[in-house]
Each structure stands twice: as structure tokens, then as C-alpha cells.
């Protein structure tokens, strides 16, 4: 019934023993069956980045078309598919999965654990993400990519107005992806509840953890709205149902409500973890703790909650009653308060610190500037009269790119410069990093700031070309030049990563002299993360000897070794007292096979080959039962 866990110290034989227990075997089984959160995290990062490059390519082609008036490089039909896929890719296949990648890799290291709570679910969530992305992209192979925009307003998406498979790929692909995101969110929450190091009470959590935690809860409540909407869309299109069809008693605005009840929380889902990355990184480079930790943590959570009360600001131009639009306008302005709290906390941290101007800090500083610009244009569009004037113009395009590129892409690149040395054991090139930052920062502003002006001049979004003589030519030319400079910046980043992997100088365990737990292990970390499991006495375990934050001290060099199998420590959720030893699963092919079976199901639904869909469903069931069927009982039981 019980095992003893006496404190041990790291020794070479212990290291060998743990490696044998935790390392994934090489070969095909290891590739498809690994449940190591670090491998899964890296896969998430690489896959999401690849989708980002695909989405960037789509944008590059569109910018070529819009560089001058009356261009005919693309047909209107192709242009529709490109802008739809650009949005779907960046919003669904890049912005959220890339943060899941960082969270997957960093969470157990930051929390002082050996893996996530459900390692196999973690593998499943990756395979589902990969397959749903490939499912959506396979639409290009039959020339029928989604073409009604990434928020797919009814009735334009209904069967009568959108023949072909275009929007079936959309509805089913997103449905597929929601499974992955939901599974991932559950995994993060349970990991936080049960797998922290002893002593890591909630007032000692890094803000990045707060960000992903808030996001994961938001996913649980928001994602089902998209699920419901996509199911209804598929039913309308395939079975002649009438959810969004006014003639049959449905209502097109039902789609908009369901989509934005999901969609606006989603905006915070793709920025809160990124803001968390910044809140943990800025202190490292300012050589002091974050100013106002408690306020930033509370701001993170309250943003996540308020994010559920603002969806109607996407619908100001739909003729809703004034009372309703006024309420949501006020709510949208209130949500700026927690954002401002975070901004002032970062500024105060920089002001009171001694900033070290390395590449991650440059990206962090650039992020703050872009966040403020995107925030100001956000408040502007929260005002109903202003929004009615500018809705569906390039002003909105400018706003959403400042927000998403500013608060997602810049922190993500900063995150790579910061944590890639942990993942690969090698530093990136500092000089190339500076070039990388300035081309991306200047290119972005050159490209996207003029879009505000194009919007104010009345240029609508989603037009495939425009006539000369409207005064839109110059701003569009400048935008295209800026977009290409930005793209060069992204290429410089890739060059830097390749250079670093081949000849970057060794990083050592803690190249930035950072305070959090992931820097306490080697770079790259061994398969088992920590040889002995640490216990935590403060918010900055690696800065304790200089901060004097209290008498409690973290213990990193002695602790339970748990070397009788894949084991880690379980704690009580609130007090972080050790409560059990968790037996972690071995590598397994079930997650891969289950995801593959679901892919078969979705192709069956897409093509109306019901036998295929049912066969896939039966396989899903078989894989689930096989997965959950208990192996031999652990001897201790």
C-alpha cells in the first residue's frame, strides 16, 4: 500500500537508473509512442511554427496582390480561400498551439515535476492537433479550401450559398481541433492541481503558469460554444437543418453569438500565456522581482473572466438593441483595466530594475509598445459609434494584427530566445538576434500601422483588389513593403535557430541567471527532469540567497528520488503538501492510433461515406478501451 520516499542526493548510479526508467527507446515505436512532455512540447512548437510559415506565405501572396490597384495575380475565388486559410491558420493552428508547446515543455520543469498529469493525453492532444491541421490543409489538395472567412458568418456559409466541401472542411476541421484543445486544457489544470513541487503554494506560481491556467479554464467554458456552432453548421449543410436559416425558423445571428461567445475568450486564450511569458522574463532581464506580482496574477485571472462578457462588441453593426450594445461597450472598456495593470507592472519593473538589453528583452520591450498601440485601437473600437464607422474596414485588420502579432508573436519569439537554450543546450546568436528584432519590429510597424489609415480612408477588408483613384494605393504599397521586411525578420529568426543548433555556444543550466525552477536542471534537461524532486520555499527558488524574501528556503539538491519506476510526487491542490506517489504511464501507441482513428471518422463525415465514419468510430472506441484497460497491478498495491 505504501512506499517510502527518503530524501536522497543526486549520484551517478541514480542518474543511470532514472534514465533507464524514463528515456523513450529509439526507433519507430519511440517516435510514435513517446509520452515525454519535452518531446511533445517541441513537436507542438515545430508544428505550430510550420503552420505559421504556411499562414505567412498565404499573407505574402495576398500582399503581392494588394500592392497596387487593379492587380489580377489572384482570382477572387483564390483570394477568398487565401484570406480564410490565413485567418484559420494563424488563429487556430498557430497562436494557441505554439503556447501549448511552451506550456508543455516548460510546465513540469517550472513546477518541479517529472511530467504532466496525463502524459498519454498529452501525446493524444498533440496528434489530434497535427491531424486536424493536416485535415484542414488537405482541402487545398482538392482545391476546396474554406473560403468564407475565419469567422464564417451565416447565411453565407449555408449550403445554398456555399456549395462544395469548402466550409465542411472548416466545420469538421475545427470540431476535430476542439477535441485536442480541450484535452490539453484538462491536462494543464490537473497538472497544476496535483503535480507541483511541495511548498509551491499558489502565491509562488510563476505568472506564466497563471496565464496558461486561466487560459485552460477559459477553454473548458468557451470551446463548447464553437463545438456547438460547428456541429450546427455541418448539420445545416449536410442534412438540411435550419439552425442559421431564417426561412426555416432559424437565425443567422445565432452563429455570430455562438462564434463570438467562443471567439472573444479565445483572444485572451492566445494572449494570456504570452503575457505570462513576458511577466516572468522581464524580471530576469531587469534583475529584480516583478513589481506587483499579486496584482498581475489577479489581472490575468480577471481578464480571463471578463473576456466572457464582451463578445457582442464584434456585433455592434448587426442591429442589436442599443441597451445591449451599450452594456457590451462598457464591459469592453472595463477589460482594459487589468491589461493596464499588467503594463504598469512591467514598466515599473523596468524602471526599478537594471535592464540587461539582450535579445529576449528587446522583444519584450517591443511587445509592450505594440500591446499599447493595439490596446488603444481596441478601446477605440469598443466605442459603438466609432466601431459602426470602421467595422469591416482595414482599421479592424490593423487592430487585430497589433494585438495578435504584438501580444502573441513577439512574446513567442522572445520565448524562443529565452528557452531554446534550455531545450537545445545552446545559445542563439546575439548579433543576429538584434537584426532579427529590428527587422521584425520596424517591418511590422511599417506594414501594419498604415492599415489604420487605409481603414480610416474607407478601405473594406477582404476585397481582392481595388480600383485606382481612391487614394488607397500608397498606403497599400507601404503595407506590402513592411510586410515583406517583417517576413525577412522571421527568416532571420529561422537562420539564427539553425545556427544555434549547429554551433551555438553551450548554454549551461542557467545562462540568464533566472529565478525559476526550470533553470535548476541541466540544458537540455534529462528525460526524468529532476534527479531528486525539489521542494519550494519561495517565489524565486534560484534567487533566495540574494533576495531575503523570508526565512523559508527551497531544497533542490536533496529530495525523494522515486526511482522504482516512472514515478513523481502528487500534492494536495491548495497547500502543496505531498499526498501520494503518482505512477506515470509508459510510452504507448494508443494516443497515436486513437487520433488516427478519429481522422478516419472525420474523413468519413466529410465525404458522407458513413461506413468509413462508423468504422472510424468503432476504432476510436476500441482504442479507448484498450488504452484504459489496466495493465498488471503495481506490486505495491
Amino acid at each position, binding site marked *: 500500500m505504501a512506499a517510502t520516499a527518503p530524501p536522497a542526493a543526486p549520484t551517478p548510479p541514480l542518474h543511470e537508473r532514472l534514465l533507464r526508467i524514463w528515456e523513450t527507446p529509439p526507433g519507430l515505436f519511440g517516435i510514435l509512442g513517446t509520452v515525454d512532455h519535452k518531446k511533445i512540447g517541441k513537436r507542438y512548437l515545430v508544428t505550430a511554427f510550420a503552420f505559421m510559415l504556411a499562414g505567412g506565405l498565404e499573407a505574402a501572396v495576398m500582399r503581392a496582390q494588394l500592392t497596387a490597384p487593379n492587380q489580377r495575380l489572384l482570382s477572387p475565388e483564390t483570394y477568398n480561400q487565401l484570406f480564410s486559410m490565413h485567418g484559420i491558420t494563424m488563429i487556430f493552428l498557430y497562436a494557441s498551439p505554439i503556447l501549448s508547446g511552451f506550456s508543455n515543455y516548460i510546465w513540469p520543469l517550472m513546477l518541479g515535476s517529472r511530467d504532466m498529469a496525463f502524459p498519454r493525453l498529452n501525446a493524444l492532444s498533440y496528434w489530434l492537433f497535427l491531424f486536424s491541421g493536416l485535415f484542414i490543409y488537405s482541402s487545398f489538395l482538392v482545391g476546396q479550401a474554406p473560403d468564407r472567412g475565419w469567422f464564417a458568418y451565416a447565411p453565407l456559409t449555408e449550403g445554398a450559398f456555399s456549395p462544395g466541401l469548402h466550409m465542411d472542411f472548416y466545420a469538421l476541421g475545427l470540431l476535430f481541433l476542439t477535441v485536442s484543445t480541450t484535452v490539453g486544457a484538462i491536462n494543464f489544470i*490537473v497538472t497544476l492541481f496535483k503535480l507541483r513541487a511541495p511548498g509551491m503554494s499558489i502565491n509562488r506560481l510563476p505568472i506564466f503558469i497563471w496565464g496558461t491556467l486561466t487560459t485552460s479554464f477559459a477553454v*473548458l467554458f468557451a470551446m463548447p460554444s464553437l463545438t*456547438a456552432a460547428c456541429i450546427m453548421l455541418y448539420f445545416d449543410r449536410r442534412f*438540411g437543418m*435550419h*439552425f442559421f436559416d431564417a426561412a426555416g425558423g432559424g437565425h443567422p445571428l*445565432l452563429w455570430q453569438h455562438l462564434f463570438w461567445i467562443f471567439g472573444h475568450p479565445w483572444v485572451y486564450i492566445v494572449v494570456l500565456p504570452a503575457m505570462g511569458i513576458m511577466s516572468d522574463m522581464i524580471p530576469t532581464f531587469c534583475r529584480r522581482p516583478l513589481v506587483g506580482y499579486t496584482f498581475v496574477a489577479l489581472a490575468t485571472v480577471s481578464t480571463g473572466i471578463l473576456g466572457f462578457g464582451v463578445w457582442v462588441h464584434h456585433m455592434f453593426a448587426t442591429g442589436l438593441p442599443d441597451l445591449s450594445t451599450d452594456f457590451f461597450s462598457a464591459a469592453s472598456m472595463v477589460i482594459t483595466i487589468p491589461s493596464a495593470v499588467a503594463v504598469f507592472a512591467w514598466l515599473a519593473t523596468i524602471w526599478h530594475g537594471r535592464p540587461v538589453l539582450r535579445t529576449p528583452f528587446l522583444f519584450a520591450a517591443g511587445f509592450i509598445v505594440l500591446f499599447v498601440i493595439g490596446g488603444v485601437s481596441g478601446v477605440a473600437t469598443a466605442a459603438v459609434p466609432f466601431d459602426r464607422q470602421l467595422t469591416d474596414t482595414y482599421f479592424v485588420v490593423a487592430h487585430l494584427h497589433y494585438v495578435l502579432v504584438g501580444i502573441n508573436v513577439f512574446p513567442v519569439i522572445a520565448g524562443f530566445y529565452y528557452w531554446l537554450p534550455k531545450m537545445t543546450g545552446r545559445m542563439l546568436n546575439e548579433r543576429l538576434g538584434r537584426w532579427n528584432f529590428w527587422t521584425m519590429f520596424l517591418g511590422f510597424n511599417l506594414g501594419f500601422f498604415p492599415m489604420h489609415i487605409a481603414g480610416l480612408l474607407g478601405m473594406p477588408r477582404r476585397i481582392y483588389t481595388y480600383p485606382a483613384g481612391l487614394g488607397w494605393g500608397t498606403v497599400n504599397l507601404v503595407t506590402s513593403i513592411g510586410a515583406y521586411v517583417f517576413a525577412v525578420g522571421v527568416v532571420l529568426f529561422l537562420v539564427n535557430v539553425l545556427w544555434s543548433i549547429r554551433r551555438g555556444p553551450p548554454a549551461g543550466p542557467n545562462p540568464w541567471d533566472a529565478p525559476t525552477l526550470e533553470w535548476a536542471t541541466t540544458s537540455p534537461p534529462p528525460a526524468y527532469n529532476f534527479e531528486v524532486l525539489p521542494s519550494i520555499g519561495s517565489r524565486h527558488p534560484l534567487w533566495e540567497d540574494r533576495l531575503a524574501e523570508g526565512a523559508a528556503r527551497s531544497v533542490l539538491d536533496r529530495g525523494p528520488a522515486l526511482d522504482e519506476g516512472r514515478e513523481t510526487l502528487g500534492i494536495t491542490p491548495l497547500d502543496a503538501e505531498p499526498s501520494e506517489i503518482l505512477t506515470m504511464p509508459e510510452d504507448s501507441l494508443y494516443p497515436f492510433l486513437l487520433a488516427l482513428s478519429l481522422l478516419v471518422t472525420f474523413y468519413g463525415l466529410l465525404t458522407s461515406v458513413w461506413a468509413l465514419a462508423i468504422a472510424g468510430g468503432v476504432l476510436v472506441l476500441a482504442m479507448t478501451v484498450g488504452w484504459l484497460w489496466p495493465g498488471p497491478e503495481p506490486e505495491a498495491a
Partner: protein
Amino acid sequence: MATTAVARRLPVGGAGKGATGWWGMILLIVTEASLFVYLLFSYFYLGSMARGAWPPSGPPELRLALPNTVILLLSSGAMWWAESGVRRGAQGRLRVGLLITLGLGIIFLAIQAVEYSHKHFTPATDAYGSLFFTITGFHGAHVAVGLIMIAVVTLRAWLGHFSERRHLAVTNVSLYWHFVDAVWLAVFTSLYLSPRFV
């Protein structure tokens, strides 16, 4: 101090309430419940926007649905009886209780199929038909998934997999089954009862 705390003897693997698997099931229920909230929101939204009568052909009949509700509630009781049995190590109570739950769940689905066959409209008739069949169908699908879970757990109960301490799978399936029943009460109240009061 935490290091001394972990030196004491700890159980291997959590059991029952508070285990990682238990939390996983709770969170799955949270997100599934949200899905039904959005489906019922859609029902009331389209109802409030309807130009004619809502529901178009009057409130659905209670003749089959009301007894069916009682059957589902009884199955929850049987599940509770089975689970509290295994907590005391009563293997017989666990096995019999699970079989009764399984039987009542199957009867529920059969009666729902009969009720479907009596309907004068289809999912493609109008928005109400789409809503009625989608919402009750989704609930039915959850019942079916719950029944498969119960079937697997019943099999494992007969194989003697569970003990007083180790029965997390029973606890989780039981949680899910009570959730499916609670959802039915929400669906029943919204679709069958609310048109009679408004």
C-alpha cells in the same frame, strides 16, 4: 519543512476523490455541461426570435418522456447503490447495481427511439425540429457513451478488478452517469416543461 514531510510513507497512486483521474473526469463534465448550456441557449434564442408559435406544433407530449425521466433517475439511484457498495468492498452489490443501471439505461434509449418514431416532424422540417432532435440526440449519444463505459466497468467488476481502495474507474463512471442524468433534467425542463409554463 517540506523535505521532512516527504520522508514519511506515502500511498502509491491516488484513489477515489482527489486523484488525478477524478479531477480529469470533473473537468470533462464541466466542459460537457457547457456544451449543453450552449445548445439550450440556442433553443431559447431561436424560440425568442420565432415569429409563430413556439414550439410550432405545441409542447412535446409527456406520455413517454415523463416515465422515461423516472427510469433515468432510478438508474442513477442504482449506480449510487453500486458505487457505495464497492466502497465497502461489497462486490455483489457492485456487480448487480451496475447491471441494473445498464438495463435501465438501455430501456431509456429504447423508449426514446419509440418517442422519435411517433414524431410528426424531422430534423429538416424547421429550426424547432433541428433543435429538438439535435439536443435530445446529443443527450442520447451521451447516454450511449455512458452505457459503453458502464458495460466495460461491469466486465471489470466481474473480473474482480475493484476493491475497497481501488475503484477509481467506478467512481468516474458513476460521476459521468449522474451528470448525464442531470443534463436530462435540464433538457426535459427546457424542451418539455418550459413551453407549458411560458
